[in-house]
């Protein structure tokens, strides 16, 4: 079978900037950060800032939904998947259902339920663990609920590779359709890591940025000389991928065409990023789409604002794109929505697609002090119009060394 073409027909998000992609993009363009101080009922950690989602479950679920059986991460995912399907305007016929599936990614999973269960066992009464705890905690809970809710009988897969999880989920879903195993895939991921335990665990690694004393919302400074670490975020992003011909037949609105996916591992160190590993994922994604550096018009960078990532990613971009790396905008929107870990790749890919739709690129916020080793055009401050965005790249690099690069082109 010749490889089939795959298009994006629906977008759904639950983000620190809200659940409307247009509003998210508008706020990002203005450089508006959703990062704020957190209140924890424990002694103040080293870092106490994050980008939390202003989530009201009752706005996303019917009254009879038993929310107590869904972890926060699953509530995000199910809500984002439903929004993506509404955006796609797709009606599943019985014939379509067994060729339609879910591809989901999360790094940390159901942190809230885990924390609650540990408290119950170690601090309260170990005899009173809620009977459905396993069903809330398992990492594929979100994907299972999404398939059940929409009646999808095709592949239902969950990937866990830290900060690349949802980018991998989208890339693998694209392959499922491209190689004929499915016709429709709801793909993306989610994270809800803002529990005391998980926050403190991240904090203990000394990778979290301390709060900027004068403006906590400006604490995440990717590619800046004074960058001081990442800021945790939470949320979900799900997209609908479809085989192009059937999407066209049903008159779907097509946001973009999937143009390439590259997957690699650094195979050197559990956290330290590698130029070669990252560059390899980008090269594979370009080769997958039959593309060259000249085709890429915007990169949504992994850009965590850790000391090592930003300089490594800059070198990898220059290694792969050559002179083109200096000619195109490269921005890290993590400066505003924080690091969604397993959900980051999907949210940032959506943002890259929105950049294509609105012919504009969002900025890297808080980039005021340049770093000589980070010398690309990171779109500091505010976003700007870019008429000729035909092709966008979104980078995701993870602890564990898993790199995932997604490329989409204008349909």
């Amino acid at each position, binding site marked *: 079978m010749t490889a089939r073409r795959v298009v994006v027909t629906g977008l759904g998000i639950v983000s620190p900037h809200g659940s409307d992609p247009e509003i998210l993009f508008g706020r990002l363009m203005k450089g508006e950060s959703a990062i704020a101080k957190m209140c924890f009922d424990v002694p103040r950690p080293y870092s106490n800032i994050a980008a939390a989602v202003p989530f009201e479950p009752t706005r996303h679920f019917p009254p009879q939904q038993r929310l107590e*059986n869904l972890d926060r991460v699953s509530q995000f995912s199910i809500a984002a998947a439903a929004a993506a399907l509404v955006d796609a305007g797709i009606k599943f016929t019985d014939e379509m259902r067994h060729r339609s599936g879910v591809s989901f990614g999360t790094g940390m999973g159901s942190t809230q339920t885990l924390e609650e269960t540990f408290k119950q066992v170690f601090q309260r009464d170990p005899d009173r663990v809620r009977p459905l705890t396993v069903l809330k905690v398992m990492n594929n809970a979100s994907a299972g609920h999404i398939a059940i809710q929409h009646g999808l009988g095709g592949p239902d897969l969950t990937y866990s590779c830290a900060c690349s999880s949802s980018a991998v989920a989208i890339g693998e879903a694209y392959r499922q359709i491209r190689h004929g195993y499915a016709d429709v895939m709801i793909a993306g991921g989610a994270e809800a890591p803002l529990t005391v335990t998980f926050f403190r665990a991240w904090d203990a690694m000394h990778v979290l940025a301390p709060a900027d004393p004068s403006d906590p919302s400006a604490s995440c400074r990717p590619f800046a000389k004074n960058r001081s670490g990442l800021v945790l975020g939470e949320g979900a992003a799900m997209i609908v991928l479809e085989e192009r011909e059937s999407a066209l037949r049903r008159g779907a609105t097509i946001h973009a065409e999937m143009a390439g996916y590259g997957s690699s591992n650094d195979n050197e160190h559990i956290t330290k990023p590698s130029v070669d590993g990252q560059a390899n994922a980008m090269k594979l994604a370009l080769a997958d789409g039959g593309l060259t550096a000249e085709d890429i018009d915007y990169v949504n960078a992994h850009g965590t604002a850790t000391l090592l990532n930003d300089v490594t990613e800059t070198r990898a971009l220059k290694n792969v794109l050559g002179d083109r790396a200096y000619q195109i905008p490269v921005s890290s929107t993590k400066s505003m929505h924080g690091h969604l870990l397993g959900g980051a790749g999907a949210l940032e890919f959506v943002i890259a697609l929105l950049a294509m739709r609105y012919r504009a690129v969002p900025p890297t916020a808080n980039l005021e002090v340049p770093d000589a080793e980070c010398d690309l055009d990171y779109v500091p401050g505010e976003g700007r119009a870019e008429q000729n965005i035909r092709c966008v790249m979104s980078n995701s690099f993870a602890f564990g060394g898993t790199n995932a690069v997604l490329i989409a082109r204008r349909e």
Partner: protein
Amino acid sequence: MMPTVFDKVQAVITKKFSVPAENIRLDSTLESLGLDSLDLIDALFEIEDEFNVRLPQDASGVRTATIQDVVDSIEKLQAADGGQQAGRA
């Protein structure tokens, strides 16, 4: 008037599973109310919490148990405990 044991059981099932209160009678079985096996263990857990009792772990009889059986079990446990369990945090 103090709510009876039946009133409280009815309230738990109504709240948790959106079963209309008028459908829940003393002779209803939990299964006839549309609760599947997972719902059953979840419902019994909630009821245990509500009354601060521990119902017998006899899974085989649960599906066919009526609301009357549940009410009887609770009243029996409450009487046997003489309120001791109710004092447990």
